[in-house]
């Protein structure tokens, strides 16, 4: 990013900061969520029930259509050729043999690709979706090792794959910055995330650290990670009557449509993106070059194009989580009260994106400390742009922070849970805002009781069964409540007592349609079967990113707004002849197939009756929720207490997770079954982060060296014990439905809980992820 762009971001950030102060000081009642969502009072309805996934039968039968499963007449298949140098220019690009190969329709390179604008990079505009801002196949310049340089289009995938091997490229390689240490030696620059500097300072933390009676000070490192959704990134693209249609696998349908429209210089309505099922996203299924290349290739050939990336191409073209080097230093008095909290370090990004891995985010609201210094510095490398991956910041930041808390507890000879509770802040330590809902003490209490924490052996390396050492550890999990601007929803209510919600949201396995059907049915007072939830289509209302665990809140607030509009309309239609006459929208709610006065459930009229009398078949309303000012008025976070038991083999160094418990405080749970799966899924990805996951980046060539599921290790069945989860179910009074999104918090704290358990088992403190067996021998 240029200096001008950085400056622009900082100015925007300062404006947000000023506005934030005004929002912080405003009365609660002026703020969205100032008045609790009436649904919070509904205790015995659909909400929270373990409803089985509505789309489950399709999925278990293999009948749910994914992006690469839309066959089109005359479709051609594509295969990508990648650069093998990190920086420079293409010297020669000989495609004649490929073009002459059987079945080849065209070979697209920078010479014949349609001319496009560069993509708006994610966070540069509310609707921007691109992983970086580099032009896509527009010139001969190489920006990273793995950049697409040619796209082969053929009648079959086999023909495309063979022809790809016939493309010959040579390069004028230029010096590339691909080594973090070398880049650091040239100097770092301050990290900026979402327009705000990644920097907080309270008092003089270094001085307080030096003066503290007890202190720990260590550096923790985490490697790069890749999302590795099992569904490969794929798109089926075609043009019809000037409109580009994409069957995509994305967590951002509307963002993708807008961004593609900008690139092609057309109206955003001329790009239609559908994505009914996404085979896992985790932050990786946004806009990368493959959708653009497919759309270009379809323009070039005049035919529909299917581009399903190989697993290697996903590693080359879709960014992952950047590595981090984090110093955490804690100074405390003898009672364990923090005097100094320092969390600072370095992470690489590219010059073409705005995403430094923000590892200090969890620390900003975690603990009360007299002084604090939080800081992220970045170096810019010539590599594929890094990006958001499940709990960006918190996942790896909590590894360092919560490992350090454990080290301090050990130094103080104090129970690590007691140490954490002793440093519970009364208000947000860096923002000064009140917490909207923080019951972390309850999560710790309930969790430690269920886990049997008090029965542990406090002495490291002292519990043995044969050749196995056994230990337990714990850590705090934390993730913010976000709600992004741009939500909107359409509600349709018909005379037969059915309702549908239309919103451009996403289903990547979270159970969106199921949980939101429950919520909408409850809000309207209808049975589940009477509600249809339509999503995954950019022509539907709303700009709803499935990211930052914000989709639940975004849909929730949008449906609240639409519901209010619906109730107003229904009251108008009901008129003076209704028992509801004279009531306003705040006084009535959905109940038993109609509207009722909230404090007088006998005073009701059914939807059918209202619509019949008004001579209407249906009512359709669309509305947008207010701006998400609640996140600037309260400090809104989810919390968790993570407990882990490990067994470490003294002969081989092998680590086995034998027990894991996540005890969560995430507001009200909307569906006990799907939420439990989200929690477990996050924890299991956290076990991978702790023990095996690593994107191996060659600092000499800037190339990812393990671009396959054989060499990038994920937790498999044998690595995953039965994982216990529990939750407080205490509603956040300021969030829609009282709920927080639960997709990301499970991965936070897990890495530290594992590392702390390994310390308890072996007496070895491993500060470098992943904790592979060589580090324990």
């Amino acid at each position, binding site marked *: 990013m240029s200096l001008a762009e950085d400056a622009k971001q900082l100015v925007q950030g300062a404006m947000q900061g000023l506005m934030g102060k005004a929002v912080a000081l405003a009365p609660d009642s002026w703020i969205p969520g100032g008045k609790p969502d009436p649904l919070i009072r509904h205790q015995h309805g659909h909400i929270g029930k373990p409803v089985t996934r509505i789309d489950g039968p399709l999925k278990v039968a293999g009948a749910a259509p994914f992006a690469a499963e839309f066959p089109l007449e005359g479709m051609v298949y594509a295969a990508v050729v990648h650069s093998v140098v990190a920086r420079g220019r293409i010297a020669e690009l000989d495609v004649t043999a490929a073009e002459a190969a059987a079945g080849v329709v065209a070979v697209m390179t920078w010479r014949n690709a349609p001319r496009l604008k560069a993509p708006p990079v994610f966070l540069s505009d509310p609707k921007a979706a691109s992983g970086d801002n580099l032009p896509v196949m527009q010139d001969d310049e190489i920006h990273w090792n793995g950049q697409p340089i040619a796209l082969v289009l053929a009648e*079959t995938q086999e023909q495309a794959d063979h022809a790809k091997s016939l493309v010959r490229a040579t390069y004028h390689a230029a010096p590339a910055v691909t080594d973090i240490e070398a880049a650091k030696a040239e100097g770092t620059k301050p990290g900026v995330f979402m327009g705000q500097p990644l920097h907080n300072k309270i008092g003089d933390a270094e001085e307080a650290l030096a003066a503290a009676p007890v202190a720990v000070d260590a550096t923790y490192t985490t490697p790069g990670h890749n999302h590795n959704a*099992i569904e490969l990134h794929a798109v089926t693209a075609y043009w019809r009557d000037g409109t580009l249609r994409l069957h995509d696998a994305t967590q951002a349908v509307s963002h993708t449509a807008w961004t593609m429209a900008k690139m092609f210089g057309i109206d955003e309505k001329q790009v239609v993106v559908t994505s009914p099922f*996404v*085979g896992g996203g*985790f932050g990786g299924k946004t806009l990368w070059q493959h959708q653009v290349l497919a759309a270009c290739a379809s323009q070039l050939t005049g035919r529909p194009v299917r581009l399903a990336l190989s697993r290697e191409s996903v590693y080359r073209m879709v960014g992952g989580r950047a590595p981090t080097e984090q110093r955490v230093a804690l100074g405390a008095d003898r009672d364990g009260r923090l005097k100094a909290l320092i969390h600072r370090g370095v992470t690489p990004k590219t010059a073409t994106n705005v995403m430094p891995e923000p590892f200090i985010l969890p620390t900003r609201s975690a603990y009360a400390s007299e002084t604090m210094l939080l800081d992220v510095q970045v170096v810019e490398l010539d590599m594929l742009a890094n990006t958001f991956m499940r709990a960006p910041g918190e996942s790896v930041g909590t590894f360092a922070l919560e490992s350090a808390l454990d080290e301090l507890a050990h130094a103080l000879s104090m129970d690590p849970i007691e140490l954490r509770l002793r440093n519970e802040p009364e208000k947000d330590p860096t923002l000064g805002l009140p917490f909207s809902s923080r019951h972390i003490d309850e999560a710790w209490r309930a969790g430690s009781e269920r886990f049997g924490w008090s029965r542990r052996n406090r002495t490291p390396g002292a519990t043995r069964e044969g050749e196995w050492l056994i230990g337990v550890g714990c850590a705090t999990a934390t993730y913010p409540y976000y709600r992004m601007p741009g939500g909107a929803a359409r509600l349709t209510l018909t005379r037969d007592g059915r309702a549908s919600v239309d919103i451009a949201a996403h289903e990547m396995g979270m159970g969106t349609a199921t949980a939101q059907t429950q919520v909408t049915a409850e809000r309207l007072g209808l049975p589940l079967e009477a509600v249809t939830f339509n999503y995954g289509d950019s022509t539907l209302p709303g700009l709803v990113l499935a990211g930052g665990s914000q989709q639940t809140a975004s849909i929730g607030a949008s449906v609240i707004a639409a519901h209010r509009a619906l109730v107003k309309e229904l009251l108008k239609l009901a008129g003076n002849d209704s028992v509801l006459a004279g009531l306003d929208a705040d006084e009535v709610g959905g109940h038993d197939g109609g509207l009722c006065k909230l404090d007088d459930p006998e005073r009701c009229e059914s939807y059918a009756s209202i619509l019949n009398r008004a001579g209407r078949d249906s009512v359709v309303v669309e509305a947008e929720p207010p701006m998400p000012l609640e996140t600037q008025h309260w400090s809104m976070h989810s919390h968790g207490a993570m407990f882990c038991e490990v067994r470490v083999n003294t002969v081989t160094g092998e680590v086995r997770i034998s027990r894991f418990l996540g005890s969560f405080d995430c507001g009200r749970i909307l569906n006990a079954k799907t939420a439990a799966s989200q929690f477990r899924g996050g924890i299991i990805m956290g076990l991978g982060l702790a023990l095996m996951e690593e994107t191996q980046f060659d600092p000499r060539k800037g190339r990812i060296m393990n671009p396959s599921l*054989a060499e990038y290790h994920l937790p498999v*069945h044998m690595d995953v014990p039965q994982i216990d989860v529990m939750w407080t179910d205490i509603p956040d009074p300021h969030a829609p439905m009282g709920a927080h999104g639960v997709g990301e918090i499970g991965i936070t704290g897990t890495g530290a809980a594992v590392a702390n358990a390994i310390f308890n088992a072996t007496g070895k403190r491993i500060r470098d992820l992943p904790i592979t067996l060589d580090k324990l021998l």
Partner: protein
Amino acid sequence: MNLTVNGVVAALPDDPRVSLLDLLREQLRLPGAKKGCNQGACGACTVLLDGERILSCLTLAVQCEGRSVTTIEGVGAPGALHPLQQAFLEHDGFQCGYCTPGQICSALAMADEIRRGVPSHVTGDLTAETIALDRDELRERMSGNLCRCGAHNGIVEAILETFADQTEQLEAAE
């Protein structure tokens, strides 16, 4: 040059490079078998070949001449689900659903392998006549089927419940 897929005779492709997976997905329009890596590392493409589980991405279609393939579409359809598919629903043994057809096909054959007494890495007594379908046996034998959403617990519960009878029968026989 034919093979049978879910009981229906289908022609083998002209191009010998076509994998069984691509034949199923692209030519026979049976997209239930999934492509997650195309190199035998993820298990999403698992189908049954004459009743045994195979990775269809590492199998050339022409190797299947005269043989019988069962895909997830042949296991059960919405409205007429196999008990194992139903158990996956009950135990939430999936989230995104992409690895699910492979998990289900793999589990069906895995249960049969145990029934036939085929030992695994964690089997204690390799000479035993019968092997119990317990959690460790199941997790070991299903480890070739990756799941990134982290539905492992639900998958294990679904398989255990579905084949509980088998375990009980084996225990009764001992």
